[in-house]
């Protein structure tokens, strides 16, 4: 490059003058200077003359003096260039014809009519005078009138020429429905229509002023508030409600109503019928409030054409946007299609009308025979949606289009005017680049199109910015000339001072709502590259805009060479960095290696072309393996042979989150980095749990069970993604996390990467996992109250072990490993009769009754030491000490004093409570129970009166039998109870002296008290007592006592009560029997007692 790059080469004033996006707004010189010949549009004619698809050919055909009638439609999406073409026709049209150009202006019908009046000028102005007598009403007043007119027009026999749907309207009593007071007050449809017709504050943008399905849906919503409607009208409202409920989801998703109307699969017949009825009557209602008669406009055009016929002139009507005529568009089009060849009283007429594809579709049926030319500036996309503007369909055409504006903003106004005066030859538009001394450097860095420098853009910037434009409301395509001007050129060219100040690319690029935030988010690696190169935050933002828009986007961050031989980073030439005074980002990117080259591995015998290890430092003769330029895709896990060290992890290789959602998450991750909220929380939940499981691998202890309780889908959150409290594990929005998550997502997606970025991503993932593991560990400590570490497993094992002892499942003096097996096993029936023990024994067993299963499950999970698919081992070492301590001391491990275990950790909270209860009660139980048993034993021995159990009961039986035979009513209840208890004892084998049950009980009753070495032994001893036999024997003995005692008292009372009553002989006889019986009974009772 011989010359240095130039500085700013345009002014803000010139940019403002040139970039007026409304084609009809700037002056002719500016207009012609930026005009790009319009070519390659689709054109069809019914004139029998085919024409070339170019603006020049169209002009030639339409303005041909032989053309007597033409009705030419220019179809295109809003902003597609319809106005530009129509204005160009106006500029180029001959002076013989009366050419009337009606602009969109403010988009209102009244504004349009005003233009018509102005265009008629003094000569024909009188024709307009009787056309419109606008009603002098406020906007609200006009809405009311419109509404009332609409309602009235729905009545039967309203129109002289019936619309054809009068019967349907009458059936459903539409006049009364639409005219109902509540509908007038609550339904906003008519007001919306009038607003659009009024230009919508200049924002109309070809919007149609027709009722749409959403208006019908709004009308149906009014149903509940409407009282006094005829039944038929109410029925219709209900039907409308049902039908329009079906389109509610589409409405919520911002689907344009027009799209729904075209969707023939949508079954909403009544809504469609009503929609048509309203739109068919709209023009009448509007004309009425404008004071335009049904034939007013048509009459005016007839009169005008008659006048022009006299002058032998043609009328050329160039209408930028037909939607601005809505309300009287029917009359207008009717006027345009009057062909002078079919009648002799009007002049020839050429009309060119701009309309959107949707509008054209609506009128084509009625006027297809009258349309002579249809020009389509767009074409249907395969993907659907808005049409693609042909003029800007290729990157080359986009650059060419932009270059004309760039050329124009660089021209001084006098120079431009001189060119215009000289005939505005499109071939000689002044181009400053031709004489610029910095041209070579500029073109090399920024590129050029047909000799016009693209500075301060480059081709990438023009295309990227253009393609990224997006209407957030989804109501229009921005891939149009208007989008290019307003969304691409203006945000850059209107701020030349920013270039002077070293603030390029300007921040204004991002102010536009048309530039989606996500499209300006650099990958984590690019952000890293930028951050490493530039410490200043503002300049980092400039670099971000530069790389995201001026860069090539198609590949990852890499250093290359442009076609002009200039170094570049991801398509941004070094000269661009220099011109914008930004640091070159290619430092360190051009080689993935270290400054000194490494050598290939040459194991085995030394190779002659490899330096010896002790060779002095310096140029290395052996060429290092160059870093592969081929992007590397991370291997799939199936080839990596990856194994899980601690098992139990979810596999990220079979993602529960689909690739499409992962891609969306990757975009969101970039936004999250910049403080924006995330969406798709359910996908994030799954992803974050996967990530946490990866991080868990780095913890020395996997904490199975506890981990799952602390790190649930609900608990793991990204910072700023919702309300959080102490339960939540919040991943902070810090560099290690934002960069790591982005790298992790890239890895999950298997995106091919350049080696340097692959290395960077891998380390970012490693750092992320390390930091997450650290934070997770701290979170576990916090949530599990580990400030003063306590053993959850130890406490759990102790609570379960105490329970196992007290239920008699195992004795405390059994080998500890057997106790370990028992406490982890499913419980069986309790053997220790806890209810027959001291109160605290039963209490402690009851306290754990609900929780033991949960605690056991938790402990099994926690102790698990899995390894691949092999048999898991148990981490018994973590509880063996606690078990031994419990056995030795009957005390549990320390637990937190004031634990607060929130949701999800209820078991841990309960564990602390139970451990504390166990600690408080267990150590006293052996002594208390032992004492209780001793007392019971003493009582049993006392009641047995030195007999064996069976012998003693035989004596009781004999006494009771005799007594009962003498006194049937003697102690019947007590005797029965005794008999029952006795039977149970017999069934238990206690009355059979050879039965082991009796033998064990007898052994216990006859044994001497022993000393114990500890509480465990004491507890084991109490568990060894045949408690069931003892209880049964004691119960039987007590019942026997009660029965004998009751019988004795009965007999005694009987004797005392019968001593002086009745016949003496009888008395004497009974007294003898009684005396004998009492004597025998007394003897027996004495024996028993």
């Amino acid at each position: 490059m011989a010359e240095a790059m130039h500085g700013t080469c345009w002014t803000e004033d010139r940019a403002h003058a040139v970039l007026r996006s409304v084609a009809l707004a700037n002056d002719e010189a500016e207009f012609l200077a930026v005009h790009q010949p319009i070519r390659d549009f689709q054109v069809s004619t019914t004139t029998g003359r085919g024409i070339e698809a170019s603006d020049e050919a169209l002009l030639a055909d339409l303005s041909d003096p032989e053309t007597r009638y033409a009705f030419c439609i220019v179809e295109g999406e809003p902003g597609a260039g319809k106005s530009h073409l129509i204005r160009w026709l106006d500029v180029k049209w001959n002076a013989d014809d009366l050419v009337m150009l009606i602009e969109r202006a403010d988009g209102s019908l009244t504004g349009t009519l005003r233009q018509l009046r102005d265009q008629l000028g003094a000569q024909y102005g009188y024709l307009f005078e009787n056309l419109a007598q606008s009603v002098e009403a406020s906007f609200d007043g006009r809405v009311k009138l419109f509404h009332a007119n609409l309602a009235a027009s729905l009545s039967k026999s309203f129109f002289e020429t019936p619309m054809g749907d009068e019967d349907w309207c009458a059936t459903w009593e539409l006049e009364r429905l639409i005219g109902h007071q509540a509908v007038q007050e609550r339904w906003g449809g008519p007001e919306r229509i009038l607003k659009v017709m009024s230009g919508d504050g200049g924002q109309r943008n070809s919007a149609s002023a027709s009722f749409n399905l959403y208006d019908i849906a709004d009308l149906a919503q009014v149903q509940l508030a409407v009282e006094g409607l005829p039944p038929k009208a109410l029925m219709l409202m209900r039907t409308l409600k049902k039908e329009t409920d079906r389109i509610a989801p589409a409405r919520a998703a911002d689907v344009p109503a027009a799209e729904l109307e075209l969707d023939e699969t949508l079954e909403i017949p009544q809504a469609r019928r009503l929609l048509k009825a309203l739109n068919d009557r709209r023009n009448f209602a509007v004309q009425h409030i404008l004071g335009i008669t049904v034939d007013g406009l048509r009459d005016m055009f007839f009169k005008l054409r008659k006048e022009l016929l006299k002058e032998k002139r043609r009328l050329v009507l160039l209408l930028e946007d037909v939607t601005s005529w809505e309300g009287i568009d029917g009359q207008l089009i009717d006027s345009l299609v009057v062909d002078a060849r079919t009648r002799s009283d009007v002049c020839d007429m050429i009309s060119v009308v701009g309309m959107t594809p949707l509008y054209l579709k609506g009128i084509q049926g009625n006027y297809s025979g009258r349309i002579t030319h249809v020009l389509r500036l767009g074409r249907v996309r395969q993907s659907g949606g808005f049409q693609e503007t042909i003029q800007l369909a290729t990157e080359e055409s986009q650059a060419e289009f932009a270059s004309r504006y760039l050329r124009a903003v660089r021209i001084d106004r006098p120079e431009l005017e001189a060119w215009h005066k000289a005939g505005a030859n499109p071939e000689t538009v002044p181009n400053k680049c031709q004489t610029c001394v910095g041209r070579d450097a500029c073109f090399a860095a920024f590129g050029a199109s047909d000799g016009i420098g693209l500075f301060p853009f480059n081709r990438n910037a023009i295309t990227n910015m253009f393609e990224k434009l997006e209407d957030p409301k989804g109501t229009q395509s921005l891939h149009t000339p208007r989008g290019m001007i307003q969304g691409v050129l203006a945000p850059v060219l209107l701020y030349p001072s920013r270039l002077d100040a070293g603030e390029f690319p300007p921040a204004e690029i991002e102010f536009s709502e048309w530039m989606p935030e996500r499209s300006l988010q650099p990958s984590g690696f690019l952000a890293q590259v930028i951050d490493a190169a530039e410490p200043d935050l503002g300049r980092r933002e400039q670099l971000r805009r530069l790389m995201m828009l001026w860069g090539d986007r198609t590949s990852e961050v890499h250093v290359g060479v442009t076609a002009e031989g200039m170094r570049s980073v991801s398509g941004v030439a070094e000269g661009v960095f220099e011109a914008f005074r930004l640091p070159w980002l290619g430092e360190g990117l051009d080689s993935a290696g270290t400054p000194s080259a490494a050598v290939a591995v040459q194991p085995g015998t030394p190779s002659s072309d490899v330096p010896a290890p002790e060779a002095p430092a310096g140029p290395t003769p052996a060429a290092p393996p160059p870093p592969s330029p081929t992007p590397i895709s991370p291997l799939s896990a199936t080839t990596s042979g990856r194994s899980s060290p601690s098992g139990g992890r979810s596999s990220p290789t079979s993602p529960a989150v689909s690739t499409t959602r992962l891609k969306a998450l990757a975009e969101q991750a970039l936004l999250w980095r910049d403080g924006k909220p995330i969406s798709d929380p359910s996908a994030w939940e799954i992803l974050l749990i996967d990530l946490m499981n990866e991080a868990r691998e780095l913890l020395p202890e996997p904490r199975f069970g506890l981990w799952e309780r602390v790190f649930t889908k609900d608990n793991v959150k990204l910072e700023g993604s919702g309300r959080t409290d102490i339960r939540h594990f919040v991943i902070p929005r810090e560099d290690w996390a934002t960069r790591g998550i982005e790298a992790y997502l890239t890895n999950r997606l298997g995106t091919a990467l350049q080696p340097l970025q692959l290395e960077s991503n891998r380390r970012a993932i490693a750092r992320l996992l390390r930091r997450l593991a650290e934070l997770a560990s701290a979170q576990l400590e916090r949530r599990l109250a580990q400030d003063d570490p306590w053993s959850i497993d130890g406490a759990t094992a102790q609570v379960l072990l105490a329970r196992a002892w007290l239920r008699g499942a195992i004795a405390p003096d059994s080998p500890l490993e057997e106790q370990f097996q028992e406490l982890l096993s499913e419980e069986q029936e309790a053997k220790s009769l806890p209810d027959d023990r001291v109160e605290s024994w039963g209490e402690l067993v009851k306290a754990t009754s609900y929780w033991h299963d949960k605690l056991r499950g938790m402990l099994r999970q926690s102790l698990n030491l899995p390894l691949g698919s092999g048999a898991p081992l148990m981490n018994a070492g973590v509880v063996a000490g606690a078990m031994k301590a419990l056995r030795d001391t009957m005390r549990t491990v320390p637990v937190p004093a004031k634990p607060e275990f929130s949701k999800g950790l209820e078991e841990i909270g309960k564990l602390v409570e139970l451990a504390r209860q166990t600690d408080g009660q267990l150590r006293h139980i052996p002594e208390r129970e032992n004492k209780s048993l001793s007392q019971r034993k003493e009582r049993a021995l006392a009641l047995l009166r030195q007999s064996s159990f069976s012998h003693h009961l035989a004596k009781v039986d004999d006494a009771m039998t005799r007594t009962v035979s003498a006194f049937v009513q003697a102690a019947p209840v007590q005797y029965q109870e005794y008999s029952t208890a006795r039977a149970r004892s017999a069934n238990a084998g206690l009355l059979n002296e050879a039965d082991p049950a009796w033998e064990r009980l007898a052994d216990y009753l006859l044994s001497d008290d022993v000393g114990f070495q500890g509480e465990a032994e004491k507890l084991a001893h109490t568990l060894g007592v045949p408690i069931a036999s003892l209880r049964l024997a004691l119960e039987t003995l007590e019942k026997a006592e009660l029965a004998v005692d009751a019988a004795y008292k009965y007999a005694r009372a009987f004797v005392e009560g019968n001593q002086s009553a009745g016949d003496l002989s009888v008395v004497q006889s009974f007294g003898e029997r009684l005396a004998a019986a009492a004597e025998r009974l007394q003897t027996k009772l004495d024996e028993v007692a």
Partner: protein
Amino acid sequence: MSLLSDTNYSPQRVYALLRLLEAQDGQLGFDSIRTWLKPTLRGVEQKGSEEHTNIRQLLGATASLGLIESPSQNQYKLTAPVPATIEGFADAVHDRLVALDADHADSIVLEAYAAMVVLTEAEQGTSWLDLNAKDRAAKINKAVPAADADEEDEEKKRFNATKSSPWKRWMIFLGLGVSMPRSDFYPYPAQRLEREVVRLRSEQSLPRALEIEAFIGRIAERMPYLDGGRLFLASVERVRLPPLGRRVSRVLSGTLRDLHDDKRLVLDAIGDAKETYALTQEPHPVRNIKAVTLEGQANNG
């Protein structure tokens, strides 16, 4: 019997065994150990085989670490106090592995890691980790000091794919790397380096900041598989990698940069070229180091 010849165990299992023995007065018979580690639970379906190979291998690996001995048949006894925490256990194992003579069967454990660090340097990155398990292991095997006799038998090679499974578990446990999603073990000694720096400072009186040369030297003693360490140099020789000179290896560069970014230590970059060591080129503000300040301001929790 060595750490890598017994494959069916994990560091966590070794520590569990040690704590079990400690709780049982330091000695247990095989049957007791089996009952403890593989209890038969009523009402719970048992997984895995009835054989106890995994317990035998666990005992073998633990014995290889010199932490238990077998005074008589099927009896196992602790030979040293058991560290109070699992992190302490990792430190103890690391210390033992660092101290091993080259002829010890377990010396391969850290030699293989050193080979990985050197290979990553030679290959200018870690994409070689994406080789299949067998080729990756073969590459490492060729970069470690050779056995006395060249072994063609895959099973007898000092390092092979079979041995890489327990090896990776040890490496992660010792804080020397992470299991990289969709790839394999990734050398990343940040955790260990941070821990060793803390231990270094607690054991010796050191200035707050160390010149880079002194820092590298100290680290090479405690982590001989990194730059300048004896295991690293042995592998460098084997691979015939030119001396690093005043450069920091790729693995250590990345680790130091991350610890610097995490404020665990501070890399001081200001100094003449003669006084500094160059870090591996990558987009990062720190490109050279003159000194390392051994304390940061980070809050881990």
